[in-house]
């Protein structure tokens, strides 16, 4: 044991780097949305550990962290990897409320997941304040080129039409993963970090309650949804 900070993924890294670099660290809430089985958990695992393995369907939600260093700031991504299953949909607003970045993930080899991503977008748009959330359309499973059902052009068209950003990735091969995270980081920092109070600063303490007491509870809600 000894150093508790190791418990938080990315936390240890944060410590080392913030000591050597006098840059401010901001918290970024990022949520992964999309149908069941499109690879949200695999993307999240790539983001935080750069690993791939077969995962079982997520129950409820998983919370992971990853620190990204930019030139002028450090961003601590707090990633909410939601379950794609329908029975958990009623709790999903807890996770995308107040998110700075939302990744709408679909599987390029399954058209229905692309359609589902558009439903998620509609739902997001009824909740978010324009300019407060960076929404990124992510076509995952780029390694399944031979059974592709959604062309990259279609993805790009949808993104252009709705004013989203778009990337195709492969969590299996790791292609475009770190680029995606870095792009999201830049975008979030430019669009939201520039605003006054757009991002809250990460207080370096081993206790989570210290910083979420200072800011609003990211899970706080004003309306009740089941279950």
């Amino acid at each position: 044991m000894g150093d508790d900070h190791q418990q938080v993924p990315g936390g240890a890294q944060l410590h080392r780097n913030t000591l050597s670099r006098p840059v401010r660290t901001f918290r970024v809430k990022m949520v992964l949305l999309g149908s069941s089985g499109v690879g949200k958990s695999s993307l999240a695992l790539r983001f935080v550990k750069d690993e791939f393995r077969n995962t079982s369907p997520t129950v409820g939600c998983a919370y992971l962290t990853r620190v990204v260093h930019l030139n002028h700031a450090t961003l601590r991504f707090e990633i909410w990897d939601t379950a794609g299953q329908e029975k958990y949909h009623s709790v999903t607003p807890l996770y995308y409320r107040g998110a700075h970045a939302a990744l709408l993930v679909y599987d390029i080899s399954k058209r229905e997941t692309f359609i589902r991503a558009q439903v998620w977008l509609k739902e997001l748009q009824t909740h978010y304040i324009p300019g407060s959330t960076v929404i990124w359309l992510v076509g995952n499973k780029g390694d399944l080129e031979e059974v592709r059902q959604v062309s990259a052009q279609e993805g790009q068209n949808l993104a252009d039409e709705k004013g989203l950003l778009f990337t195709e990735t492969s969590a299996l091969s790791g292609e475009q993963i770190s680029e995606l995270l870095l792009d999201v980081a830049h975008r979030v920092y430019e669009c939201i970090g520039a605003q006054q109070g757009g991002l809250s600063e990460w207080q370096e303490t081993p206790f989570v309650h210290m910083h979420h007491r200072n800011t609003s509870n990211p899970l706080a809600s004003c309306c009740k949804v089941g279950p």
Partner: protein
Amino acid sequence: MDGGPQKPAVGWENGMLAPVDRLRTERADSPVPGLVEGTEPGAGQQSAMFVHAQSFEDLTAEAEEDVEREAELDESGEPSEDLKVLVGEETIEKQHNDDIPPERGTKEEDVSSEAWRSHRKHVFVLSEAGKPIYTRYGTEEALSSTMGVMMALVSFVEAEKNIIRSIHADGCKVVFLAKSPLVLVGVSRTCQSDKELLRELQYIYYQIVSLLTLTQLNHIFQHKQNYDLRRLLAGSEYLTDNLLHRLDRDPGLLLSAVTCLPLASSARDVVSASLQAAKAKNLVFSILLAGDRLVTLVRKKDQFLHHIDLHLVFNLVGSSSSSREGEGWTPICLPKFNTAGFFHAHISYLEPASELCLILVSTDREDFFNMSDCKQRFLERLSKRSAYQAMKEALKCPSYSVEQVGIPELRHFLYKSKSSGLYTSPEFPAIYQSDEEQERMMGLYQDLHSHLHHPTRPLRSFYRCSETENLLAWVTSGFELYLCFSPLGTKALAHSAVNKLLKWIRKEEDRLFILSPLTY
């Protein structure tokens, strides 16, 4: 540990092992263990951790009650007891009891194939409208007509104001459990009794309820009788699959008990106290697991966790990989606690590669950061003591070998302390290492178990010889014991082994059981 067996051997030599009713001696004075509930080895000191669970009777009792109630409704109806219908044409024509069919089938199986038919145990779940909800093997779509027939059978008997309980046909048992709005059907070629099969169906029912709550289930089917529940269960079938696998393999589910990580009581007490200190307003249960073994459980005062609910939590944690890297946060209904609402479980591993998993159960769905904070405080506290190291050491040998007991010819045993709801068991010896052998062994235990818990003629003890092993089962008001000896053992040897084993368990109980459960 204040209540350990300090004073040995009062009456031990007298061989007072016959059940003595109402003999309520102090634990310390009673090294002749536990013929009376609460004094047996492994009995908790202060209070039980779980909802008081005599045995699996309370699990099947509900189903029985339903049946009885329904039966009472119609005086003129045939007695539903021993309803045996022969449906030779309906079920599988040929028996292959000797074949060992592939245990884990795939969903793509052809349901008309012989391989599909020869699975040892099928489980089907359907709605009252006859819509398929779950099948263990094959796909639900392919089985819609089969499930239609099942529902027709249920409705046909119901129309006569009666209830179909089982069909026995040519070595095959078909067991029905109607738990509105669901109907569960088990088809088994094993020698398990109806009651055992019913118990397993009950578990499956609770698994589904734990994902959705009964309130939601009722609500859905009241509004749309024809609803396809697979939509809501999509992505969770593996939980049911895994639970069925556990039912075949895990003695805890058979005994309605859980087993503990062997750990020095001093270390366990520190871990428990650290968990106790890391409390929060809405925290109801803190559970620390090492794989499938309980390290400790701290609960809110006056709130009890039922062993079924705990097994559902075990199944959830054991089946999902997503909390490995980060922290999981999921709604879960604990049906034995409350079928109407969700709790919210914070699931995380103490270290990424560790077996130690902490589950914090809160009543508030927005409590994630509070739970996360509780975990940090627990770790903080724990790291200051040596208990964490002791626990990690204990993880290296999460079980013990039967040789340590020192009883010749003894190969394996299961011992359950009734009052604490905990059991202990050594690891399977080398000859039972294969999956087939372990499942065969579990089958033997299940058979003993069903004799001891027979609905009308329960046995207190049972000795059975076979070519491959000799078995002894014994139940008192304090414990249940199942012993497996080599075929060279004798009955006299088996009986004398009981004394010796109980004495050994008494000596080791500090390590093998949780004797002083804590509350917030």
